């Protein structure tokens, strides 16, 4: 029997997961919390890239879809006192997928730049709804506040109490499982066909693939994973506000995807974590001037980094192999 040799990227991923799981040994509490947040945004960026990088559908309303998940678990916990984690994420994923379906049906009517404008405005509609509609607010504030850490059923018996370390590990488990699912989907024949539709829709149509259906499916899957990430965000932050799901948040997700490398496997996950950390440390450096740093990252990424970090690594790797091959 031949033993399958894991690819270098898979080994690196496993090492990174292990490193995060053991990191509480060296990180203090705020750093653990930051790492948890970075993992959540890594997943959110990876979910965006399903439609963005692999489907070729630039969406500027993705944080709103994540927000649907976040608001779902927030409302369940704060207004209806349902605190089961598994029920919470199930509802979050299903509701986000349904909203994404409506989003997709509307936005896919438009093409090119129009599609971007449609996702921008649809996303902002949800953010405005959250700002204006009383059912989506805790009394007296413009947000859902007081979302606690959920109960995990039987798993709670194994955990003495939920502190930043156990929360980090729990989020890590969920994010890794979700990410492996995304990787599996993108590596499947469905993922192949989706990239085919992105690169040459007419040829795929001629081969008998329904381009529109693939695009719609990518938006729904993307939205479902966004809902999961949004639910994790709400559980971890304890609060979800209209600004969490507004256009600025969606723009940051696009930055994460492109900085990491859209259409790659690990790129968006890395981009999400890096940008989250950059935002945090820019805020530490100067609360008032942090947007200038973020703005500079945007502009430099736009001007310089075409394939993202993943693209840069791939180019280096290719050069290295070429150099080795010619030697």
């Amino acid at each position, binding site marked *: 029997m031949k033993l399958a040799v894991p690819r270098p990227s898979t080994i690196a991923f496993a090492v990174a997961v292990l490193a995060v799981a053991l990191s509480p040994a060296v990180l203090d509490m705020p750093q653990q919390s930051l790492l948890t947040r970075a993992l959540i945004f890594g997943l959110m960026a990876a979910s965006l890239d399903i439609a963005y990088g692999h489907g070729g559908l630039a969406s500027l309303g993705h944080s709103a879809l994540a927000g649907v998940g976040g608001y779902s678990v927030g409302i369940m916990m704060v207004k209806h006192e349902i605190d089961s984690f598994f029920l919470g994420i199930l509802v979050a994923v299903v509701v986000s997928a349904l909203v994404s379906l409506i989003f997709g049906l509307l936005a896919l009517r*438009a*093409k090119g730049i129009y599609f971007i404008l449609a996702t921008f*405005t649809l996303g902002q509609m949800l953010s405005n709804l959250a700002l204006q509609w009383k059912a989506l607010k805790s009394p007296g504030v413009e947000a859902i506040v007081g979302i606690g850490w959920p109960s995990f059923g039987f798993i709670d018996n194994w955990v003495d109490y939920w502190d930043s370390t156990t929360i980090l590990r729990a989020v890590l488990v969920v994010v890794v499982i979700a990410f492996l699912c995304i990787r599996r989907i993108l590596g499947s024949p469905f993922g192949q066909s989706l990239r085919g539709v992105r690169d040459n829709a007419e040829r795929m149509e001629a081969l008998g693939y329904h381009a529109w259906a693939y695009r719609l499916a990518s938006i729904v899957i993307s939205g479902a994973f966004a809902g999961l990430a949004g639910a994790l965000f709400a559980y971890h932050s304890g609060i979800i506000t209209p600004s969490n799901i507004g256009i600025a948040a969606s723009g940051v997700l696009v930055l994460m995807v492109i900085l990491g490398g859209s259409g790659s496997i690990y790129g968006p996950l890395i981009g999400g974590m890096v940008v989250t950390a950059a935002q945090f440390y820019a805020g530490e450096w100067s609360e008032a001037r942090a947007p*200038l740093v973020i*703005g500079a*990252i945007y502009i430099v990424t736009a001007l310089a980094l075409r394939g993202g970090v993943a693209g840069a690594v791939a180019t280096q790797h290719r050069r290295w192999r070429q150099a080795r091959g010619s030697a």
Partner: protein
Amino acid sequence: MQIVANGVSIGAVLFLMAAGLSLLIGSMGVLNLAHGAVYMAGAYLGWTICVDNGLPLPVAVIGAGVGTALIGVLFERLFHLIGGQADQQILLSFGLVEVLVNLSQWIWGAVAKSPFQVSWLAGSVKVGSASIPVARLAIAVVGFLVAALLWFVQDRTRVGAIVRAGMDDPSMVRALGINLDLVVAGVFVLGSAVAGIAGVMGGLVLGASSAQAIDVLLLALIVVVVGGVGSVVGTFSAAILIGVLDAYSRSWLPEMSSVVLYALMALVLVVRPTGLSGRAAR
């Protein structure tokens, strides 16, 4: 009547904003999401000239127009550098918004400026039972004048013909020996100047605040989606429609007001995805 008048004046501001956006998308496929930040810069410049220094309103309009035209020159160079990639355009726009908004908060403070008071535009005109503030009339007049001017340039002049031809077949226009890049740069700078003027005129009723960079952009984008790109008449009718609808929904359904606009946009997307004017997006 009162509500219609309010809506028309907001619609005029939206038209000034959306005209530049839609011309850019139509002529070069440039998605400049920082256009709202240019509006905001115009509003703040107008505040400095008109309120802080007490100079007359026309001076503020010219000053803000020139100032935002300069911002437009800078933006055009940056957008020119990254070429026609939508990904990069989105990132560049967002970066410029972050920087401009933060700089404006640095210069003008985080507190929003209240609507500009201009002595000769105070008071109101009685029309039937409604009393319409003179400031709102002035906004509508400026909006209509600019609309007429833009329509004339685009539909009746050689430059307008080049811009329209560039939307339909850019490579053919270039093959005819026309420097399309220069024309597009001109459209970019002109659009920015018009957005700056919109900022000053809008400041008469909306004041100036950093939130406008996104809020005004959003309304203008809805106008672009509803009106279609690249047509002055389509943009104008959509802007007035959105302005009036926004004013009505604000007074009737305050809890859901913005949803009404989005519902209209969703309807247009479903029925006529290319917008009212019907030019296909590239």
